[in-house]
């Protein structure tokens, strides 16, 4: 096998996610009443960015064979917090942003510490901490309200040079500045190793605990970036329970669409981003084809099922039945 075929095998899940997204987006763009325009791309990307941040967060945890069911609630909490503190002068706003991101990091660190030192299952831990984070969010914003520095908000949800949506640039920057260094660091590789086989990783002397801790912490940070952008789009804070939970569940769907194995050890946050973009496009497709919005959940489910099945096609050709379970 030549070099590029190894590369292809490594990136298979991510490439598949990009392919699914491009195909869906082309269908969407060519059928859009206004045609393919900078405006349309801006609207589409603003809608998809939030889920993309949360999906990146989820992917980083899922790679360690964990799961973070609190990502949606961290997003909600940081949204409520941002509607209080990301206001005022440039300095006050900057401190506010740091405060919001710091809160996300803290939430992630709490998750990580409980999973590692409490030796609790990630699924139970993050359900519990997610409920706690939501509780704090509710205290911050019993009723929807608050405000945000609108100059900053408009700058980050608008377009750069009149063409590229700023939210997309922020997403790319997060991928480039957080995911790429992380995945190529010793800690990041230990995260993959832990997800693939924790015992083998331990026996090999890989820093398992540091890797898990870093994964949950980064997940908190990325969820908080999502929360910040939610505030920029909505100009308000709202402790919305249903929407927080929806982000958590959709993040798992996006991660699977993005070719990240729920068993851990395989996938990338880049794939998860495209998984999120593709998942959001499903909803938009219905809009351009003039379907009743009532159809959306059913349709989303069917498309998700089909997309996930693509990954299973390889199993149809299997000649040794034991490979079904590998």
């Amino acid at each position: 096998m030549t070099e590029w075929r190894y590369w292809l095998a490594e990136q298979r899940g991510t490439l598949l996610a990009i392919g699914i997204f491009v195909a869906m987006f082309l269908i969407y763009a060519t059928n859009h009443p206004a045609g393919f325009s900078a405006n349309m791309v801006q609207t589409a990307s603003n809608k998809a960015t939030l889920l993309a941040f949360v999906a990146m967060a989820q992917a980083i945890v899922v790679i360690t064979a964990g799961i973070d069911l609190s990502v949606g609630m961290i997003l909600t909490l940081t949204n409520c917090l941002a509607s209080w503190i990301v206001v005022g002068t440039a300095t006050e706003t900057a401190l506010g942003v740091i405060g919001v991101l710091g809160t996300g990091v803290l939430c992630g660190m709490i998750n990580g510490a409980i999973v590692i030192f409490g030796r609790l299952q990630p699924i139970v831990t993050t359900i519990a901490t997610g409920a706690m984070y939501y509780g704090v969010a509710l205290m911050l914003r019993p009723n929807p309200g608050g405000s945000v520095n609108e100059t900053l908000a408009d700058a980050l949800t608008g377009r750069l040079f009149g063409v590229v949506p700023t939210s997309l640039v922020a997403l790319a920057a997060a991928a480039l500045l957080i995911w790429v260094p992380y995945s190529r660091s010793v800690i990041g590789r230990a995260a993959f190793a832990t997800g693939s086989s924790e015992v083998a990783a331990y026996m090999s002397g890989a820093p398992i605990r540091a890797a898990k801790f870093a994964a949950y912490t980064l997940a908190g940070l990325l969820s908080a970036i999502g929360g910040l952008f939610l505030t920029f789009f909505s100009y308000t804070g709202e402790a919305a329970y249903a929407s927080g939970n929806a982000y958590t569940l959709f993040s798992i769907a996006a991660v699977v669409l993005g070719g990240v194995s729920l068993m851990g050890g395989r996938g990338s946050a880049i794939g998860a981003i495209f998984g999120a973009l593709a998942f959001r496009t499903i909803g938009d497709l219905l809009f351009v084809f003039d379907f009743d919005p009532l159809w959306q959940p059913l349709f989303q489910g069917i498309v998700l099922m089909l997309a996930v099945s693509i990954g299973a096609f390889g199993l149809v050709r299997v000649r040794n039945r034991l490979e079904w379970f590998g």
Partner: protein
Amino acid sequence: MIAAEPLFRAAGLSKRYGGVIALDRADLEVHPGRIHAILGENGAGKSTLIKLMVGVVAPDEGRMTLEGREVAFAGPAAANDAGIVCIFQELSLIPDLSVADNILISHPPTRLGMIDRRTQRRIAEEALRRAGAGDIHPRALVRDLPLSRRQMVEIAKALARQPKILILDEATSALTAADVTKVFEVLKRLRSEGLALLYISHRMHEIAELADDCSVFRNGRRISTFAAGTKTDAEVIELMIGREYKHAFPDKPVRKPDGRPPALQCKALGWGDRLRDISFSLHAGEIIGLGGLDGQGQRELLLALFGVLRDTSGDILIDGDKVAIDSPVTAKSDRIGLALIPEDRKTEGLMLPMSVRDNLSAAAFDRFSRLGLIDRQRQSALIDEMIRLIEIKTASPDLPVSALSGGNQQKVVIAKWLMNRPRIILLNDPTRGIDVGTKQEIYRLLRRLADEGAAILLYSTDYDELIGCCDRVLVMYDGAVRRELTGAEITERALVSSALNVDDGEPAKASAP
């Protein structure tokens, strides 16, 4: 014996797990430039000693010194850094990472905080070459490599850590004969470079070829250390089991043809290019061995018979009737009565966290359930009977299987399938990594099952086992049966030469009267 100061010395090491004493004031000296073989039954304390040496567990009492300094390791990473590296029997490779990533998992070269992939690749290629496995691509994922290649990666990984003491724990059990030869060359070279090697194996001829010193462990203590070649195999085995060693294999009865059709017959069985034109008959009461080098299609043949493989060609006949076996469920049905005792007991044979009771029940629910409900009393009766029959050493059938020793785990795998009262038993290397005592029990069990009317097909990588246990041996080469050996024809020489697909040069023997 050896005058020089030892590189490593353990004194008075003890380790208890609950009430069980795994290691009882054991001592050991390791010298540079020598290969030191550690012998003993499973449960003799070998694995515990090694776990202490590489920091997986901490000793309850005793001291270890390395190069004259006392050492205590917080974990495998610390021991590796100090220069003690172990290649474990249970592989420590990470399936979803590439070969190069795996080789340098603990200390990857970095630049600006990120892993320097180019340097990593160069070091990995170098390590693979030193391990004699230069044909493995450093970018290949470990999960895509066969077991024997993974073991070579494991050796390369150990070498990349520049160890002073290299411990090999059953490291050759998964290797093909060609790889074993390569590994032995590597080990001898490392010895000449001044490394100390600890070599743990159940294969006596490997120890004879490699070792300079031998230490025998029994019941958690070192019983004896002697220079290799100063004791006969029988003497060594006596030391290991603490009693006189005789009748390792039960007698083979003379089977008279009874005119009945064979219990299992294959006619021109094929599967792609992995199995080619395989024909043989297996009668009730007979034990047929499958020999040959590892990976010549033996495993595929067993899977094909058990209905795991798709699109096989040729015919399978049970009691003279043609049958289509399309799944393990069909294979184990009463009509066919097949059982396959798998090779990898950890993944295919057992559900480790579940109890002995649940494991034994898993393949035999039909035996004690009515209308989909389990008859608890009948289940318990059958399970108690089976535990007694096979002499599984467990405090209670409700203990998790993972708490049992390797030999007893393998007995549970066998017992699980015997619950179904199979008429044809397929075994895939059932004694790999198992101690002498348990091996003997398994041989006796197989012969007893055959005497009671079972037909047995036994794949084994151990020549002694094929010679001692089997009425006939089919030697496979490249997916086909290269040669069939019967009775006195089954010799080590004949097995090896036909496994390598060469003539043994002996004149053709007249078939036994």
